[in-house]
């Protein structure tokens, strides 16, 4: 089994936006999808999951609507708003930039400086 990864602060919201961008989902679905994409390597802090959902909705990045789940239960489905899509784009770009810079620094060998 691979080692679980701990998420840095603030990245959970980005992952939720990403998960929803692939198609609207209810809360538990989002959880499952993130775990599934990460190859079960992400152990999401359960307590902070809904806090993040609420915050995203309150900021208007995602939008919740009641509907029927696959097993015919009432569930609240979230979809990305246009503001949320923009946010995901900038966050992703920022993240890639940042990791590239950090990775670049960490990769440096002494003789290359």
């Amino acid at each position, binding site marked *: 089994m691979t080692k679980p990864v701990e998420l840095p602060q603030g990245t959970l919201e980005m992952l939720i936006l990403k998960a929803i961008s692939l198609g609207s989902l209810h809360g538990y679905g989002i959880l499952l999808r993130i775990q599934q994409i990460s190859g079960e390597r992400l152990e999401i802090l359960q307590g902070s999951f809904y806090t993040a959902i*609420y915050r995203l909705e*309150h900021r208007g990045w995602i939008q*919740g609507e009641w509907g029927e789940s696959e097993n015919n239960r009432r569930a609240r489905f979230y979809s990305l708003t246009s503001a949320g899509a923009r946010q995901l784009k900038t966050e992703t770009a920022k993240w890639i930039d940042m990791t590239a810079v950090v990775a670049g620094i960490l990769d440096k060998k002494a003789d290359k400086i």
Partner: protein
Amino acid sequence: MSRLGQIRKLWRFIAPRTQGDVEEEFRSTLDNYQEDLIRQGLSEEEARRKARIDLGQPAAQNETYREAIGLRLFDEFGGDIRYGLRALHRSPGFATVAILSLALGIGATTAMFSLIYAVLLHPFPYDGADRIMNPVFINQQHPEEYQYFTRSKAQMDDLRRAAPVESVLGFSGSHMEITSGGLPEDIYGAYLTENAETFLEVRPLLGRNIEPSDAENGGHSVVVLNYRFWHRHFGADPHIIGRTLEIDHTPYIIIGVMPRSFAFNDINGVGDVYLPASLMRGVANGPAPSYIPWIKLRPHVTVEAANAALEPIVLEGKKQPSGASAWHLALQPIIEPYQQDLGRTFTLLLAGVVLLLIIGCANCSILLLARGRARLHELAIRTAIGASRWRIVRQLLVEALVISCAGAALGVAASYWIARLPLLISPDSFPAESVIRINASVLAFSVALALLCGIFFGLAPALRLSRNDPSRALPGRQAGSVAAPARHRWSVLIAAQVALTLLLMATAGTAIRGFLRLTQMPLGYDPANVMQLGISLHAHDPAEWSRIQSREARTAYIEQIRDKIASVPGVSTVAVGIDATPPDADAQTSFIVDGSGDGEQPQARVMLVDRRYFGALRIPQLEGRLWNADENNRGDFIAVVNHAFATRYLSSSNALGRHLRIPGLTASSRNQAVSAQSTAWRQIIGVVGDARNDGVDQPVVPAIYIPYTASMRAWVQFLVRTESNPFTSLHSIRAAIASVSSDQQISNSASAFNGTFTLSQAIERDAQYSRQRLFSILFGVFSAMALALALVGIFSVVAYSVAQRTTEFGIRLALGAPRAHVLWVAVRIVLVSAAAGIVLGLAVDSFLGSLLAHWMQNAFAVGSLFTAAALLALSALLACLLPARRAVAVPPAQALRYE
């Protein structure tokens, strides 16, 4: 949308999802997870448990939601508020006293604010009221004596064309009679130029205001009604528009009713009806009608600039004396006549209520500190389980705010009535149009005040109580057998409170003493059961007027009415006077006395009266005689003077037989009729006692009494002395007057100018009298409240400390301390603080005394200061001893049982 709906919408905006919604969603996630766990092989019970451990309880989810959307602080405050409310509910005595203390202060302060707002800041309903100016003439010699002036239509047009002027309203007041219906009724009408609607911009309650089209064809016969008149005369009939009102035998169509706040008033009184100015016709051969102008300046034009620009226009053609007595134009904001007097009154009253508020706040602080000592244990536990100091300060502050807001709510409700008090006590000192209402500004003011007070009185106790070491407070709940730590803070508060109370009491004492002196001052006449009846002669009705226009006919007419009134049962004396009703009288006039140099310009009041005047007012006759009926009808060659006149101008010789003449006694207006030799020499035939003629509080001015027939106007007043309350005879008197001339009615208005009122009412209306009365009543009330607050403060501090130190007192008694000593220990600190407060108050008072005396226009009475101090000391002692008795009433055995 309903108010409730708006609130709900706002709430949806803050927190869009309901608790049920959040919980349902969470529950569905929980169920999904639980099913997955069961699929993985867990038993149902285990899955349920694990799901809740991993994800949390649905019941707690709403809290997570609210925290996520940033409502945590809000929820915590809500909790603090609920806790504060519960704490108040648990100690109702404390809550009542604290809330009432503040309600008094906040109520009085809010009332004063709404009064100032209504009277000084926004007294007029007119559009751009701060740009509306009353133009007056002033000269440098007497800048405080300004003169109103009138303009003809053409002159107003000149003004209107000037650059700084936006528009000009002209008006002119006149006594009129309603001639439709049974008995004629005297009313006061104001002619307004037809731009009234656009100039004043007050939306009528019903119908419309006077419009420019009303000037067409020499003026439409239309009338707009004043709100009070509409109530009085038409019983507030909503279908009045279009009906006809007959005024001076001419029918007018009623086109509008003005709202309550509109009480347009010229200098002499509030108009009952408003008419288009074009209807005001000049009398044949007389001057064209003229109006008093109101000038509305353009925005951002300064008064100085406007004065400079308009002065040449206004002064054109006016004969100008040179030098310091030259006339200049001064534009007065229309509030100014009120502001001059009221500014000072309000400053004093505001100072009074602020003191009251501070005393109330101090009281709350004292109560919180005293009660806080009992809460040290609770606060220590909070600190011990991790509350930060900030958190505790916050909670204590929120509790203080709960008290102050409750106090403010009560206070604002009360202020609605309190604010009316000054208007009731002294109605004539305020603009007729100021309506006291609780509006947004007043509410904002009181909310701000409540928050400020809450922080003001809550902060000191909160800081004090939160600085408390749990390790010391927690071990036991004994606190009592050890001497309590010093309570500097509330002893300082008590001293300050007592000092401020003394200040208020001394002020009240001064005011009351001044007022009593005023009421006991000899008037020189007897106002009891004397009534003034003003009548206007029919100058508007050409047919009637021609009958009584001549001096002889007018005299006969007046004498005939006088005789009729005198024959009414219950009437004992009837006198005639023209603007000679005490305590005021017409302006001073120059006269010449025989043997005096030419350079002198002595001044005296000329009182136009008949020979019965002195009897009716019971003014004593000191020397010589009064004139007889023939001399009365002739009007010339004789005069009677008052004692002040004799001593001031005739001191060198016997007054009787000297001569004087009054050059100014000529006809100056077309309705005036003077006697043949009115300006000739008059022999002084008698001297009478001094009767107040310059206001109740001012020394009597030299006065010359001459027969009223020497100079008659279009109005006259009868002074009627009756055997009992004059108003009970009013109806029969009206009938008596109507029997002489069916159209002749007395003035209904209460205006000092020509109204109907008793002489006692005239005294009450006197500016100085009503101000003094206002001060003494209000400051009396303020100081009584302050005293009550201070005593409650002292009482509760002693009561709390005695309750907490029961054990200590028990030990002292058990060890043989005398009761008196224990009593002394119980009250020592409070008593010393109170004594210090009294000494401080005495010091402050003697420092402020002269200042206060100047502001109240009243001598500061040292006697009343010491009376107040003694009263305060005595009641403070009582407030200490009453609760302290419990300290010595505790049986030692019972007190020790707790040890």
